[in-house]
């Protein structure tokens, strides 16, 4: 029998506990419910990191809503090496023309991916397009993007858990933690 691997052993510091995340997500849900009352809300989440946040957030919103999922290639991904351009791996399943769209992100750091997505989604003529992110890392921002709903502003550290990965691992941690540098050997 294989012994279970303790993923949390690779975490140097728990930045956001499960309880803190849940409380903040509930608060965001209340605010969104108030702001979008009487409107046609569509939550658009970006795979894969946003999945846990999306799942928790939508259940904290007390309004009729639609959800949709997108996936975009990331720089360095093997599937995109040949083109050298970002690609929509999974597009929206239904039109958002005239809808009030709330783009749900797990984390904003450089803003490059989000900047691309905003331009892409605006081309689909939503009535409104706003941004909701669980984590905001402004120190690393390259593209300034107005964030309408922000869970937590975090320091400039590499974090994993609650959907965020390193090498596709750690997404299933219930908290957000700082990965031990020795795991990825950052040397400054």
């Amino acid at each position, binding site marked *: 029998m294989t012994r279970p691997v303790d993923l949390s052993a690779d975490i140097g510091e728990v930045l956001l506990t499960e309880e803190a995340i849940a409380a903040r997500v509930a608060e965001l849900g209340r605010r969104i419910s108030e702001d979008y009352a009487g409107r046609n809300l569509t939550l658009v989440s970006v795979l894969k990191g946003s999945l846990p946040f999306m799942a928790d957030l939508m259940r904290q919103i007390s309004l009729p809503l639609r959800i949709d999922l997108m996936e975009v290639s990331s*720089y360095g991904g093997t599937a995109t090496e040949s083109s050298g351009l*970002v690609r929509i791996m999974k597009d929206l399943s239904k039109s958002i023309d005239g809808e009030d769209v709330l783009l749900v992100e797990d984390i904003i750091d450089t803003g490059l991916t989000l900047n691309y997505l905003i331009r892409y989604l605006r081309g689909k003529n939503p009535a409104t397009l706003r941004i909701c992110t669980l984590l905001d890392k402004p120190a*690393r921002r390259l593209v*300034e993007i107005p964030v309408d709903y922000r869970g937590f502003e975090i320091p400039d550290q*590499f974090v994993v858990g609650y959907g965020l990965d390193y090498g596709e691992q750690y997404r299933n941690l219930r908290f957000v933690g700082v990965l031990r540098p020795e795991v990825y050997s*950052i040397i400054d």
Partner: protein
Amino acid sequence: MAAGMPPRRAPFAHASEAELARILDFYEVRWTYEPDTFPVGWSLDGDVVESFAPDFYLPDLDLYVELTTLKQKLVRKKNRKLRRLRELYPDVRIKLFYARDFRMLMLKFGRLALADELSGTVGQATPPRAHAADLAPAPIAIAQAAAPDAATDDGEEPEGTDPAGDEAPAGGTRGRRRGRRRRAAARAAEAARRVVVGETEPA
């Protein structure tokens, strides 16, 4: 290639700059390479003696980006010039990407090993053949091995190691790059000479 941008082959001074350009292209963020030079120091006669040419300008974001892959403790001079630029040109928006920022960016994209390959002197671009006459090939190879942190080809130098004073005054980008190459070659040749004759290596 970013939408609406003509094909270009910018002669990057450093491999990390080429990598950042690829990242910007990937996300369709338009850029130009070293389009502007900002004077930041003048002599008593009014001549420009110090200037700063940020690596990238992102026109859609109205943002300059300077990328340095030197270790944190070696970027004091660049930080000082950046502060000066911000004092003199408060409307200019500029973001300095340190070595750590670049490594974290590569980590995010799962390409940390590449960051190690591209950082510091190791990542210096090989001078184009067209400019080979400006350089002294053999001493450069020796000097890079002898003094990996002494200087880079993109004007990054630790405090107090710039024998020529600083970057060239404001002028044509090509001329400035050529001037930097010449000074880098001169420094490399001097470092090589010291190694050959057994003198102390450059700090």
